[in-house]
């Protein structure tokens, strides 16, 4: 179905970064940019589903353990006050990826480059801005500046790597069930499932609407008209979304829904799951203990 979403952009979706800022005007105009953005999301989802179906270390673990364990490792990356530990955590993320048959170029493409560009650019001025003794005489780079830049970049990269490992090794429905058994309220889990499901539908609708508008264009538009076109597409999408919400509600009611979500749990925890969880939880505990 999502094949109607256009082929992905060559650039990876900015994982771990937010391109809130302006993007330069590239060729192809605003509609093409929108289509590229939509395509990148669809591509990310598609590849995540494909990775999750491989047989590897993380894919074989219980999803609840994975959510809790990788969450603990993300926390560890933000907790530690020592660069060596941060480096070790980064190596651990790489090792986990390889053991789960996720090639490192995949992590690089999806996480490291995007996060590196964003956080790197943000960390760079710290080299000069953070006061301290200069690292090398004559150079305006301070020692503390270098360390703080390394912390910022290292934490962002490491935490994002652990986070993406969860998605790349766990189908979304399993993430949801894991959240459920971790006592996340059932209504929230149901909403998360539905949100994810309808993101794909709305991506598809959005791509269709933008395509339809683009198909009617004969040449490049002045920015004002382009803007109106994009806003019109978003408006149409908003109305569709609200229609859809009403229809889905009726479809739920027709099947007996009365406001109480019920889900079915079907996971078994095996010894290796407990072992993995114990290992993952030991990391932040050890870090906290070391810092106390």
């Amino acid at each position, binding site marked *: 179905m999502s094949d109607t979403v256009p082929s992905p952009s060559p650039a990876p979706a900015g994982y771990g970064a937010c391109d809130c800022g302006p993007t330069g005007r590239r060729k192809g105009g605003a509609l093409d940019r929108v289509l590229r953005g939509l395509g990148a999301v669809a591509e990310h989802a598609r590849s995540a589903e494909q990775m999750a179906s491989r047989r590897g270390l993380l894919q074989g673990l219980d999803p609840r353990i994975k959510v809790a364990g990788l969450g603990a490792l993300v926390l560890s990356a933000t907790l530690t006050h020592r660069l060596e530990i941060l480096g070790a955590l980064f190596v651990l993320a790489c090792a986990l990826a390889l053991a789960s048959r996720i090639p490192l170029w995949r992590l690089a493409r999806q996480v490291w480059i995007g996060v590196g560009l964003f956080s790197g650019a943000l960390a760079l001025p710290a080299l000069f801005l953070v006061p301290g003794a200069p690292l090398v005489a004559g150079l305006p780079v301070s020692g503390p500046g270098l360390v703080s830049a390394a912390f910022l970049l290292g934490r962002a990269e490491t935490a994002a790597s652990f986070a993406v490992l969860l998605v790349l090794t766990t189908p979304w429905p399993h993430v949801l069930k894991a959240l459920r058994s971790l006592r996340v309220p059932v209504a929230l889990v149901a909403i998360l499932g539905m949100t994810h499901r309808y993101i794909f539908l709305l991506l598809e609708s959005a791509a269709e609407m933008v395509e339809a508008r683009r198909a009617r264009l004969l040449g490049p538009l002045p920015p004002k008209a382009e803007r109106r076109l994009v806003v019109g597409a978003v408006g149409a999408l908003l109305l569709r979304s*609200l229609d859809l919400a009403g229809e889905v509600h009726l479809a739920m009611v027709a099947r007996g829904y009365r406001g109480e979500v019920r889900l079915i749990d079907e996971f078994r925890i095996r010894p290796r799951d407990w072992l993995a969880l114990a290992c993952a939880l030991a990391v932040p505990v050890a870090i906290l203990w070391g810092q106390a």
Partner: protein
Amino acid sequence: MHIPDGYLSPQTCAVTYAAALPFWYVASRRVSALMQTRAVPLIAVVSAFCFVVMMFNLPLPGGTSGHAVGMTIAAIVLGPWPAVAAISIALLVQAVFFGDGGLTAYGANCLNMGIVGPFAGWALYHLFAGSSGVASRRRVVAAALAGYLSINVAALCAGVEFGVQPMLFHAADGTPLYAPYPLSVAVPAMLIGHLTFAGLAEAVITGGLVAYLQRADPTLLTSPGRGSRTEAGTEAGTEFGKDTAAGAGWRGTRRLWAGVGALMVLSPLGLLAAGTAWGEWRAADFASRAGRDAMAAASGAAPPQAPPAGLARLSEIWTAPMPDYAPAFLHSEIFGYILSAMVGGGLIVLVFAGLSALAARRRIDA
């Protein structure tokens, strides 16, 4: 504005989670009470919409483009509480599935974009729109302005969250362990990007969508939270419209805001253990080339052509009230933190509490 993992200390993350929690609780209660069985599908689909909207790059004046967050339009169409729920869910899916924004920073991102933003946008929209007719041009302008200001308020919150990091969380030698820039850099850096591109994108999308809805389905602007155009007659959801239109959203939250303020004041108490001298930051650094790079990086914006003239003065707003001859404790990091948080957060609270009171009075007059 999606804060990644590692920029904020775990303590800050814990505080922001704690601050967001009561809002989530109230939002879930109110949404399910007001929308009954419709809550789950409506919030889910609107969350998906918010997510997809962030993929839309808008062409902006000046040959650039930016994407909107859509928090104000969500609050206008749904009312503030459902908007809190929908945007928080959208941010969660973004963080977990697509990696936009960190997991530990999720509380902070929700606080900025999912709570402060929609409430600010909603209050400002109703303040500016006043009693103007649904189809009036004033509504469009009000929406655009509300969108513009609310994303900047959210950016200010993010800037404050960044800015307090080096004061509180640094190694024994003063090396910052998390976001390394002080308030005097972080706040202007966040604001410059959002006063220009991101703010403009939000203004265009919010105003544009209100204009679109005026033509396509004006009822969505009169009864927020109806949220369904096809459920003929059965559950028109008008009760929700009344509720939000009467300003109950803000009345209900004023106490919560006070709670947030209290949390801001109390949070550093847990951090009393930490404590070494804090390296002085100078406004002079800020006007340097590197400073501009920092701003550019933080906002993703192109560096301004000339050193920004007002920045030195802006940074003084934070540092000037504490003259060098002040008693030593006033220079302590804890005091600096409390001051910053109070000034940053407290100002917002006061402004919006005031605005909402004003807006409520106007509606009663009308």
